[in-house]
């Protein structure tokens, strides 16, 4: 177990930096997690993060990359629903990195 400090609050994480309890998530901790990876969250990042949170809320799982790409394309347009766009936003892998900032567990089957 580890922890992250954001805005005076402490958030528990697992050994890979994913939040231990997704209910403790807020925008502050997402921004701090991103800063630790030298990543500045823009509106485009938030679109994907918010999408992931909604997806998890509805289905109780994080989508696989292929599923995420397709669903983003449907919701936000074809110019965003491709791996080039998503990898530019999240160079460590869209599902893995974006899920982390969204406070979700690591996607099933993701190594």
């Amino acid at each position, binding site marked *: 177990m580890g922890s992250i400090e954001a805005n005076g609050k402490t958030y528990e994480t697992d050994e890979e930096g994913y939040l231990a309890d997704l209910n403790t998530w807020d925008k502050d901790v997402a921004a701090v997690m991103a800063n630790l990876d030298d990543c500045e969250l823009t509106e485009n990042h938030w679109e994907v993060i918010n999408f992931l949170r909604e997806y998890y809320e509805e289905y109780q799982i994080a989508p696989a990359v292929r599923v995420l790409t*397709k669903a983003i394309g449907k919701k936000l347009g074809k110019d965003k629903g491709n791996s080039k766009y998503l990898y530019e936003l999240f160079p460590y892998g869209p599902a893995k990195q974006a899920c982390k900032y969204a406070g979700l567990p690591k996607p099933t089957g993701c190594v």
Partner: protein
Amino acid sequence: MSNAKKMMYINRKAPYGTIYAWESLEVVLIGAAFEQDVSLAFMDDGVYQLTKGQDTSGIGMKNFSPTYAALGDFEVNKIYVDKESLEERGLTLDDLQHLVWEDEDEDWAEKDSIRLVSRSELSDVLADQDVLFNF
């Protein structure tokens, strides 16, 4: 897709008494990434896995039934339900979740994923598979 195998996951157990239902669902979701020809069968007590309105608050387990609705996104859209198993338990198709998938080639038209089949029809589908996984 030329090397795709026909893989079927057979689900026979009630959702929460054992870990089989959840394990099966996780394997299906992982396996879906490999672009095989995946289908699912629900028979015996396995039909309870798809019922609507599951509430696990009394047993302290995660209610994973909403996850079945994500199968369509993972392009798993052949879900066979054994008609006799439903009837034996006093259930009908209306007691099950309405699972759909969206056909990208037809402007995301929603199509039904569940195929209600008789036991003999299901036998034919089973005989046609390359790989069967029993859960």
